[in-house]
């Protein structure tokens, strides 16, 4: 967790882009719930588009937030695929969850750049809390 005066920032890593996206989702939910307590009874399928990797990342995480809020669920396991450079298909596994300690309201593009460095990917994502 990093300092950001507006809200919440997370730095995430991954060996592959798929792993980065999965880790970003895990990190995001880790801010809201105790991941070890979430049941694994539901699978949600996500399909989003974007103009580049950054907008795909925002679209992926935003979709998870929408699912969380409308289904009252938390997710802890994620799988992501890129069938095309501007498309993402993913699965989020989790279960019913009522109490979110600090609900994340939105994912922003603030300072978002997915970088490839030393054999891995990384990005810093800022959330509106």
């Amino acid at each position: 967790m990093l300092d950001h005066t507006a809200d919440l920032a997370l730095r995430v890593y991954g060996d592959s882009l798929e792993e980065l996206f999965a880790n970003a989702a895990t990190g995001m939910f880790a801010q809201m719930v105790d991941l070890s307590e979430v049941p694994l009874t539901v699978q949600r399928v996500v399909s989003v588009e974007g103009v580049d990797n950054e907008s795909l990342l925002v679209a992926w995480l935003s979709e998870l937030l929408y699912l969380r809020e409308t289904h009252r669920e938390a997710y802890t396991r994620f799988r992501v695929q890129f069938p095309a450079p501007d498309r993402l298909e993913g699965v989020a596994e989790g279960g019913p969850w009522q109490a979110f300690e600090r609900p994340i309201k939105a994912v922003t593009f603030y300072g978002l750049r997915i970088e490839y460095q030393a054999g891995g990917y990384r990005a810093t994502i800022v959330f509106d809390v």
Partner: protein
Amino acid sequence: MSEQKIRKQDLKKVDDTLYEIPKGTRNFMRVPARLYADDALLEAALADLSVEQLVNTTALPGVVSHTLAMPDIHQGYGFPIGGVAATALPDGVISPGGIGYDINCGVRLLASNIHSEEFLRHRETVVDALARSVPTGVGRGGDVKVDRNEMDVVLREGARWAVKHGFGSQEDLSVTEEGGGFTTADPDAVSPKAKERGNDQLGTLGSGNHFLEVQEVAEIYDEEVARALGLFLGQITVLIHSGSRGLGHQVCTDYVQRFQKSLRTYGIELPDRELVCTPFNSPEGKEYWGAMQAAANFAWCNRQLLAHRVRAVFTETLKGKVKDAGLRQIYDVAHNIAKIEEYTIDGRKMKLCIHRKGATRAFPAGSPDLPPIYRSIGQPVLIPGSMGTESYVLIGQKGSIDATFGTTCHGAGRSLSRAAAKRGSRAEDVVRDLAKQGILVKGASMAGIVEEMPDAYKDVSRVVNIVHKAGIARKVARLRPLGVIKG
């Protein structure tokens, strides 16, 4: 994003309240940028990237005259919070970041006929009842449920829908900005996802920096205006600070995503991606404008429902115990919003899209947009302090029309990041400190209380004094919190 840091020497002091960053300071600037601040607030602003963000707003296509930031400036997404930018219609852009994720986050002030001396005997009862009765929306949903078709009516009518269904009166609408609802809102431009998120949240307070506060009028600065507003020393008031919840956030998310393509379509280059925008008269621009208005209407409906709930609690807990348990609405303002307004620029009347991001409209006396009862005194401006600090009532002045596109500040700016706030304190300590000052705090989340600790915010009285001095909005009264309910 433009990472070059703006230094103190880049700013020219215009007077005791105002600094300017000249047009040539960065090569992408189309107009100068102005910052209302004193020396201390300027130092604080230079400590994060808020001034860079202010400078970046001058790159918006169609931007007019100068962009601004108010003294409560702090780092936001794209636009700084406290930022104001006007773009010329029809081709100037509209930028969702200039409004914010929480569309029509705003403030409503209710006033009673009860004196605090009398009220303090019942404070615990009232605050407890408010905490139990007002839905915060964290965990538990709202109590007012609508189906999909009815949601569209809510989005079209705003607070008018609530009044129509018995939640408040016509009088409330007359003292709400925009009459409690834009008349040109477009529910069809709001995605099903956004409506789904909003479904369970109608009439809820929300979390983060949203709160409901019972206060007393602690000081009066302008006797005449205070009397005209019906404010007196020691009077019990209630402040509601809330917005458009998940629905507004989804609308912003949807259009920020959609406008990524627009940048290429219209050949727009920006120093910061979060300034993403599109020409106002483009198809997607018009849709966002329609959706933004709909989300704003949702927030006004929300505040109308919340106010109704507060009134019910006051009646239930105080009937028979005080002479009059009623609450009258003073005003309701938006501080994350865009408006179409007309201003004279270089002798020419221009229709502009005014972006107010963490900034409040502050129209002076004589403005036709004001209700008849306020037309001779000006628009009330409600400035919430953060949890546990004072709030202010101001009145709009002519200086706002001359210099700031009819705009003033919105509250204290955050200076401590949430992470730093958490590292520094424990919820029990924050609650105990506030209790020592005579403030009762009830919150749904302990983490929320710590992150919102008063020290995390810039000094609201400092901010208010600057806009007062600058002739933008004049101080009328200071309100002291007696009890706070937080999501």
